[in-house]
């Protein structure tokens, strides 16, 4: 009975979303106050019914209701309780419901925190959010009903995908979806502005905090996904240019471009067309990502169940949303770039370069991700585009960006005054060069790649510090740093840390597969791995082959690692638990392979990964920067403060 109630509340949500997409919009067009006033209550009601539906699906999991097909496919009576809750989003139907729930949550938040906005704007923005919710609700109800019954019920479920039974999985998809869906807000503001026909700096100011938060969540989501793949999947890598990863990375890149473009539009009035287009693109790519993952058009190591009919439906939805908004853009975008003219070496130019490079990188990834499809359509045969393509092109596009980062904050709006920033930055460029040279000769096992990476990292770090120092020196206390500047500094510092991490770990990591007899030693980058053997050990709900590897450095014991192979009693699956001794300067990583003979010889895989933690530390700094910007006082100023000159 309860699952039917879940379905009914989804149907009710469909009605509410329909009302939300029509009534406030008509009200705004015809200036009918009461119609516009329905926007907020409808948004809250939508959140309420979708929440009920989500809660009922969770309840079905907690109750082991295997008469619900989705529960039977993705749960099991022996599944631990915490995973019963996260199993809700471990496959297609539930992920979609979670996506939808975040969408209506953001809609309700926009409704709640938009008191300062004129009513027609609120009405239009919420109506556009309602339309998106309508599309997702129709998709859920007509192709992916999570409450479908399986009659007669089975006595036992098929269990949750074992790979996803991990704490990292609890937060990875929700963070990612929060980011994706957050771009819907920037999108809705852009479309509302286009419908209104008034594209001024004001709408950008309203949408900026939302974009920043969405981007920061997306950053966290991607970073957590990368970390999860690293320590749980035991592949030793942190990024694989897999279609699903690319799907989340494209909106991230365009979102990063959007952040900067919005700042220009808000402060200078320039780049309006760009900002609108990027706002549309960031959300469109989020939708496209969903399409790529869900339609089965591309195969991927992440492939969940995929289905062409669903593919057709999302494609139609994609065409309506993206095609519609781009058509609106073609018809209504400002006739000309109305911003103030700017000189060749002004801050505008640098931010434009930032936009172009980030967008080009996203386009390059899109092309690479879709290339197999394109090749197949044109009968070019089977060509797959692998990490070498992405890695090379991405570095080629990002190297100029890294080189330009320090200039952005130090150049001036509108005016050409490159000599000053060049004078400020010259000593730091020299310093970065010295760092690179020292790295090349002195870094343990360093290569030209290590030196190149540290050149970039030192340059960004020094340039960013130079800007901070200048504010400290030249500006009176109290107004030295706005939240927006602090956010920028943190995010740019994050880039430096990230770049350093990537290049060091990519150029100096080492791995070794060995057949290890108990008592045997292996030397790897100055670390002595001593294999003591494997014993059977009973865990709380599994039986493990419990290995012991003691690592010494310079004769001193620095870590004892216990890689395991666990056979879970519940569900029965075997999981490899790699053992990891993490540290800022290096990760030591041991994975247990298979027993090779009866004398206790095991296949072992050993890794030493210097400074790999910097990759995620840098990402965290970037995300933190995104969050901090939101606290800028400017965004809380009421509308009456007007548009800045």
């Amino acid at each position, binding site marked *: 009975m309860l699952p039917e109630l879940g379905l009914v509340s989804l149907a009710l949500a469909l009605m509410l979303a329909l009302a939300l997409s029509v009534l406030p919009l008509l009200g705004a067009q015809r200036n009918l106050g009461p119609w516009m006033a329905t926007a907020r209550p409808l948004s809250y009601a939508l959140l309420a019914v979708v929440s009920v539906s989500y809660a009922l699906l969770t309840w079905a999991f907690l109750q082991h209701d295997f008469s619900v097909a989705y529960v039977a496919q993705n749960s099991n009576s022996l599944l631990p309780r915490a995973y019963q809750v996260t199993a809700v989003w471990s496959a297609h139907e539930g992920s979609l419901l979670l996506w939808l729930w975040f969408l209506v949550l953001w809609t309700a938040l926009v409704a709640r925190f938009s008191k300062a906005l004129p009513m027609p704007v609120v009405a239009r923005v919420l109506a556009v959010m309602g339309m998106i919710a309508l599309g997702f609700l129709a998709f859920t109800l007509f192709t992916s009903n999570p409450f479908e019954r399986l009659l007669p019920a089975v006595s036992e479920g098929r269990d949750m995908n074992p790979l996803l039974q991990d704490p990292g999985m609890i937060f990875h998809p929700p963070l990612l979806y929060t980011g994706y869906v957050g771009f819907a807000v920037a999108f809705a503001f852009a479309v509302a502005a286009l419908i209104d026909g008034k594209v001024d700096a004001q709408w950008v100011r309203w949408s900026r905090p939302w974009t920043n938060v969405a981007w920061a969540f997306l950053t966290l989501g991607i970073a957590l996904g990368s970390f999860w793949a690293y320590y749980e999947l035991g592949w030793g890598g942190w990024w694989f240019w897999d279609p699903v990863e690319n799907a989340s990375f494209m909106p991230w890149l365009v979102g990063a471009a959007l952040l900067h473009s919005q700042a220009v539009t808000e402060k200078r009035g320039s780049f309006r067309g760009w900002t609108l287009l990027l706002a549309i693109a960031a959300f469109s790519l989020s939708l496209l990502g969903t399409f790529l993952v869900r339609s089965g058009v591309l*195969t991927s190591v992440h492939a969940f169940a995929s289905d062409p009919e669903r593919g057709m439906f999302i*494609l139609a939805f994609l065409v309506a949303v993206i095609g519609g908004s781009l*058509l609106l853009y073609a018809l209504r975008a400002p006739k000309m770039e109305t911003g103030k003219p700017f000189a060749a070496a002004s801050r505008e130019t640098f931010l434009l370069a930032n936009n172009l490079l980030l967008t080009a990188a996203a386009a390059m990834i899109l092309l690479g991700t879709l290339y197999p499809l394109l090749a197949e359509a044109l009968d070019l045969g089977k060509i797959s585009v692998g990490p070498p393509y992405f890695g090379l092109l991405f570095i080629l596009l990002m190297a100029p960006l890294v080189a330009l980062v320090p200039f952005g904050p130090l150049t001036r709006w509108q005016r050409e005054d490159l000599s000053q920033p060049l004078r400020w930055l010259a000593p730091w460029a020299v310093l970065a060069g010295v760092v690179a040279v020292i790295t090349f000769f002195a870094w343990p096992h360093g290569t030209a790649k290590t030196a190149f990476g540290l050149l970039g990292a030192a340059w960004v770090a020094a340039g960013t510090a130079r800007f901070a120092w200048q504010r400290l020196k030249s500006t009176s206390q109290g107004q030295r740093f706005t939240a927006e500047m602090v956010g920028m500094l943190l995010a740019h510092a994050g880039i430096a840390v990230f770049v350093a991490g990537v290049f060091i770990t990519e150029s100096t990591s080492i791995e070794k597969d060995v057949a290890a007899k108990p008592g045997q030693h292996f030397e790897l980058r100055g670390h002595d791995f001593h294999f003591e053997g494997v014993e059977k050990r009973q865990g709380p709900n599994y039986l493990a082959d419990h290995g012991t590897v003691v690592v010494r450095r310079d004769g001193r014991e620095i870590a004892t690692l216990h890689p395991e192979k666990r056979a879970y009693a519940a569900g029965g699956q075997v999981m490899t638990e790699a053992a990891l001794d993490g540290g800022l300067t290096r990760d030591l990583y041991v994975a247990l392979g298979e027993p090779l003979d009866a004398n206790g010889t095991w296949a072992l895989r050993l890794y030493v990964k210097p400074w790999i933690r910097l990759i995620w530390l840098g990402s965290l700094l970037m995300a933190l920067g995104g969050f901090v910007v939101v606290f800028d006082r400017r965004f809380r100023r009421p509308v009456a403060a007007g548009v800045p000159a």
Partner: protein
Amino acid sequence: MIKRLLPLLAFALLAVLLGLGVLRNSGKDTSAIPSPLVGKPAPAFSLPVLGEPGRLVSNEDLLGEPYLLNVWGSWCPACRDEHPVITELAKSGRIKVVGYDYKDEPEDAQRWLQQFGNPYSLVIADYDGRAALDWGIYGAPETFLVDAQGVIRWKFVGPITPEVVQQQLLPALETLE
């Protein structure tokens, strides 16, 4: 105006491409659970034979004769349910059945086969499930039909029942013969 239409035009091209991609996928046998791999060559793999860790079998070794690749594990209750059906099928001699032991301890797998019978002409072991990623294997049981040229012709997710054999597998087999 033309300049402003460019993003729309670019998207239109993209949409056509994606539409083609979806059509290509859905044009295939819709009675099976659609898999992007159906109609494509089986992924390259090289895996040890269960119980003989030194002996590796690759996808090329299996060319020349159609075979049914049955993904199972001793830990998987549903595999036990379908086991009689698989056994029946192997006994009928219509197709060679290869077992794919997925994420399993070798001893457990061998004990399981002793207990329930071993219908497989060959069992390969994917201990850490890495090769399974290439096959798009989501869990056990799953079953693939691969033709003599090494192309995947049919795939089924979940336990095989006699109905599935009658309605899907046998017709698929006939197209091979």
